[in-house]
């Protein structure tokens, strides 16, 4: 972060951020990460005799399997066996929300990359070689690749959903301005650097242990049990950590684990299945592309009086998490604006792409892109700056969301106004203006992006977690929760909570692997709420243990338990140090046969949602913030560089500033990637063209904004957030949407004939074509 010479308020705040970063806790895995000693699924020591597997998948997007010949592949030396749907003892079904997805194709294939068989061999190399020897003949059926096409053909995953507030139809009759338009936002590949994978081992009595790179250990356990036709308790799923997830391993880590388990079930040998990158890209779903249409109505003073939108979600060939993602699009369709009359509708369109899935933001970003597009369009037509419309409609305390929840502790205007004043928006805009009038081959653009994101699983029953806390004889502590560590730092937060409650050093605490035997029936680590749910459970467990230990201490020290506190591994009475240490206290508790283990269960209070009425209070709270993005476009080459993104973010009261800042910066880069260079391409036959890292580009170190400044909004935080430290995983991704509009503003500065388009991502190709388009359509 660079100091600004004249802006003292900003400098003071940046200094405070940088001081807090020096103090703040480092990711507890840092030590092993930097030494290459952290263990991911492919690093776990495997048993002797372990087989390796490779998936044989469909070379067509839609068709009937006429004929498959495995004989040459089976004859290859080193090939153990090839498994198909015929080898499934239970159900050939892996669908989570809707039972519409087979593990292996039977008669039909529905997407290019759909698993058909599993080749198990002595080495992965042999299995891959065998894959090349399989002959398959498929009779082509019509392929649908776009949501619009699916809608026209009546191909849907489920019934449409619709939210409404007020009466938009009637309200349009009172509007001074009405604009309509269409938008498109493309999918996005997760590109976790660690590809999907699992390792299954046979245990006694037909039990199977699976090490999986999954965000949802229970989903894996449940699905393995279903496919194998065994009880869930026979399946143990263990997760050390993930090399990135971003939603891509919430549901779609499951098939690979199930396949490895199926082979283990039959062979009674360990089986490892790690997808190579090309297989992963081809076989797994991505962020949903959306084709949407909107109608926005405003009054003369720029109040949005009515908003209607229809979202066509390209769900792919099976439901996966699409219905839940579609729902969240509706929840966030009006972003951080209050619109009194809203009608929104989403259709999950069934196509022949791999089933699209969760990706950081979970449908929210797609919804927000549409209203931001509508605002940009309206501003352009009316002839005002888009921020005038944005500012005129920001949420206020007690405003109603379209789903009935009343907005409380709203930080929309607070973050917006802070961003404007701290970063001196007027000066920034003047700089852009001056630059543009002095430069003909480079143009700058600036855009603001406010965000409002609801925290909780919108499916209320999923908002729970458990923590199992052991204090061992020597005073060391082991904690198991449902949280999966995938880089977001949740384990560090769990450790902080325990260290704080027990007042012992972090070296005395170990965060265990996430394991279905220790913590059962869990929700996936998703929806930004992992730290909240598991943190609250950890807090409850630690507090219960502390109460018990206080009783032991009070008996030992002959005082009231109310006067006991723990500080730096010593027992205090009324803030006076005693001779009783933490370790001694634990020994005494053991002698008194006091339980030193606690299992706590937390379920988020207050939340509810009635899907029959599409009204309720689905979110524990919302996260707010505002980003100011400045970009420079090279008008000769159509390329662009982001000068800066300046953010005021609502962390609540951050409990781990370094980790939380990392989430903001990382999500921002991902959001910008989605809006700019990351371009998924399928051809008309449904084959993925962006099928390698050479054709699918994610941001590198040179393409991220040169300057990223993140200042916390001044706030008291929210009680339903863990230690008032708000969820931070997903919300900042949506700051990236500002990148699209900043580039568009720069294009307009170069080419006054440019006709606004809302077709993300804004690749260098689209930029160059827009810079030189001459006809207004």
């Amino acid at each position, binding site marked *: 972060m660079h100091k600004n010479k004249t802006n003292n308020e900003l400098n003071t705040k940046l200094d405070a951020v940088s001081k807090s970063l020096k103090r703040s806790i480092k990711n507890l895995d840092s030590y092993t990460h930097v030494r290459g000693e952290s263990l991911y699924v492919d690093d776990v020591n495997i048993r002797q005799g372990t087989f390796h597997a490779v998936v044989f998948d469909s070379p067509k997007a839609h068709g009937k399997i006429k004929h498959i010949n495995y004989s040459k592949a089976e004859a290859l030396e080193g090939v153990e066996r090839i498994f198909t749907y015929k080898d499934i003892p239970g159900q050939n079904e892996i669908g989570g929300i809707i039972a519409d997805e087979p593990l292996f194709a039977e008669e039909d294939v529905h997407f290019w990359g759909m698993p058909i068989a599993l080749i198990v061999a002595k080495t992965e190399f042999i299995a891959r070689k065998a894959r090349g020897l399989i002959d398959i003949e498929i009779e082509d059926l019509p392929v649908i690749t776009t949501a619009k096409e699916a809608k026209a053909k009546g191909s849907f995953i489920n019934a449409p959903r619709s939210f409404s507030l007020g009466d938009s139809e009637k309200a349009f009759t009172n509007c001074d301005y009405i604009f309509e338009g269409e938008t498109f936002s493309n999918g996005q590949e997760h590109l976790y*650097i660690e590809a999907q994978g699992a390792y299954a081992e046979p245990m006694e009595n037909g039990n199977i242990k699976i090490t999986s790179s999954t965000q949802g250990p229970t989903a894996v356990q449940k699905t393995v049990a279903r496919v194998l036709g065994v009880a869930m308790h026979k399946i143990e799923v263990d997760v050390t950590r993930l090399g990135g997830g971003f939603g891509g391993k919430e549901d779609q880590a499951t098939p690979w684990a199930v396949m490895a388990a199926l082979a283990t079930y039959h062979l009674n040998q360990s089986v490892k299945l790690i997808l190579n990158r090309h297989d992963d890209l081809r076989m797994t779903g991505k962020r949903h592309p959306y084709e949407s249409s909107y109608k926005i109505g405003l009054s003369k003073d720029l109040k949005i009086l009515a908003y209607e939108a229809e979202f066509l979600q390209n769900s792919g060939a099976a439901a996966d998490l699409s219905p839940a993602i579609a729902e969240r699009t509706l929840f966030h369709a009006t972003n951080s604006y209050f619109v009194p009359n809203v009608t929104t509708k989403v259709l999950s369109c069934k196509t022949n792409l791999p089933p699209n899935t969760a990706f950081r933001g979970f449908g929210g970003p797609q919804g927000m892109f549409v209203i931001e597009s509508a605002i940009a369009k309206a501003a352009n037509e009316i002839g005002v700056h888009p921020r005038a419309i944005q500012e005129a409609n920001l949420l206020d305390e007690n405003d109603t969301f379209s789903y009935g929840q009343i907005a409380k502790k709203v930080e929309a205007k607070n973050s917006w106004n802070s961003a404007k004043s701290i970063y001196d928006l007027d000066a920034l805009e003047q700089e852009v203006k001056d630059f543009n009038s002095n430069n003909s081959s480079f143009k700058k653009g600036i855009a603001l992006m406010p965000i409002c994101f609801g925290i909780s699983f919108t499916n209320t029953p999923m908002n729970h977690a458990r923590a199992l806390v052991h204090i061992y004889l020597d005073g060391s502590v082991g904690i198991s929760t449902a949280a999966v560590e995938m880089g977001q730092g949740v384990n560090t937060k769990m450790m902080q909570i325990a260290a704080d409650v027990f007042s012992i050093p972090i070296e005395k605490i170990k965060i265990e692997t996430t394991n279905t035997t220790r913590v059962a029936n869990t929700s996936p680590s998703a929806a930004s709420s992992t730290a909240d749910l598991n943190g609250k459970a950890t807090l409850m467990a630690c507090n219960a243990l502390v109460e018990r230990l206080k009783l032991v201490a009070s008996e030992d020290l002959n005082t009231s338990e109310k006067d006991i506190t723990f500080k730096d591994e010593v027992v205090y009475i009324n803030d006076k140090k005693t001779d009783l240490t933490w370790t001694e206290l634990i020994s005494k508790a053991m002698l008194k046969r006091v339980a030193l283990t606690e299992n706590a269960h937390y379920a988020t209070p207050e939340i509810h949602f009635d899907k029959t009425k599409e009204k309720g209070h689905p979110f524990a709270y919302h996260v707010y913030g505002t980003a100011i993005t400045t970009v420079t476009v090279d008008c000769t080459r159509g390329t662009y560089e982001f000068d800066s993104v300046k953010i005021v973010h609502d962390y609540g009261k951050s409990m781990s500033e370094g980790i939380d*800042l990392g989430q903001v910066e990382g999500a921002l880069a991902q959001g910008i990637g989605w809006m700019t260079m990351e371009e998924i391409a399928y051809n008309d036959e449904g084959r993925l063209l962006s099928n390698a890292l050479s054709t699918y580009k994610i941001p590198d170190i040179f393409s991220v904004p040169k300057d990223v400044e993140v200042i916390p909004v001044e706030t008291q935080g929210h009680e339903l957030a863990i230690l008032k430290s708000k969820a931070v995983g997903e919300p900042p991704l949506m700051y990236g949407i500002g990148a699209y509009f900043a580039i568009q503003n720069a294009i307009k500065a170069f080419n006054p004939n440019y006709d606004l388009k809302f077709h993300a991502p804004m690749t260098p190709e689209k930029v160059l074509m827009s810079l030189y388009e001459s006809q207004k359509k």
Partner: protein
Amino acid sequence: MITFILNNKTITTPENSGMTLLDFVRYQQRLTGTKIGCREGDCGACTVLVGTLENDRINYQSITSCISPLGNAHGKHIVTVEGTNLKDKLTTAQEAMKANYATQCGFCTPGFVVALTGFALSNSEYNYNNALDAISGNICRCTGYKAIEKAAHQVVEKLEHQKQNSINWLVENDFIPAYFESIPKRLKDIEIADLNQPKGKYVSGGTDLYVQQADHLADNDVHLIAEKDYLKGIKIENGICTIGTNATVSDLWNHTELNTFFPNLKKHLKLVSSEQIRNMASLGGNLVNASPIGDMTIFFLALNSDITIINEKHKERTIALKNFFQDYKTYDLKDGELLKAISFKLPTVHSFFNFEKVCKRTHLDIASVNSALSINVENGTITEANVSIGGVAAIPKYLHDTSAFLVGKTLNSETILEANEILQNEISPISDVRGTSDYKRLLGRQLFFAHFTALFPKQFTLNDFVQHA
């Protein structure tokens, strides 16, 4: 037998030299800190260092081990992240990553650590931009890089006052473990047997071949040529530069004299893949890969280079590079022939050279269109011109007509606009994953204009060529 030092251990292995170095260190040696991200050199998670003995010193370079044949490790010092670890404490690069929150999921982290350690061990000047170049081939999906930038700053701050790398100083300052000091002697003492190359596919750096056919190469004989002396070296004599086809892009980058002749050489080469790949990729390999979009091919086409071809009987022939390419991926090379050298006339006071490339991502990406121009201008008149362009035809294209048109003309905007008309007739782009044909046509025009605004900024601005501005 392949013999080399892996971290602190001497290894002798009978493995096939065509297997990837990555598979060897990870699955045979169980050094699991070297991660698999993409297996095509596009993510850097498998970055290792290769140390080559040169006059009693070891020259260390970073490479992506996923597209490097094991046989190329023969006689070298290979360093994985484990080989940089100190006992019970972090190295300076590791500490910088930790202190700045530059590791989240941790999967890409060892690659960054190795690349930053490689920077400390390299011959580059210790400054922030060079540190960024060192990690230009490392992709992180979690952090958004701002924390990694801070870590790089911290590493540079520690190094800044050191003029040149000294193993001893780096050991004392916790950049590397002490055993590095013993490596030069140990490498010298290793008996480097001739690998007794079998017949098989010629492989130099392997950076393109291993992306396309790693499985095939691992399973078959390969004929490794990276260490062949007669294919090495950069020679400058009588205004002619002759470059052995085994020279890597980094060899050009590091060549002092070439940087004098081409003041923007580093700027141009920075657009070519990443440091890890530049350290491996041979120029000959780029030519015979014959990609219509090969950066170095476009570069040398505009220099109107000749290439020398050698056969198994060591007979040589020389042809113009622009006549080498015949059709998509076909070229004038017979069985048993190898490209030996590339030669071209060095620029004079009257000549100017520029290279342009646009892709989705500016760095470590394949061009939508790339183009190069060398031009001689004397008293306002163009006396010689060579224009090349990639991504707009089945072959990397030398623009015969456009080049010929320019010669003898006055250097002004009319000439350039007219030349563009000819250029547009010479190219025939198709729509693919790198862009539509309309886009490539427009981009071809823009990059052609860009040559002139870049080379003659006082004479031309974008305004001279296009309307809107």
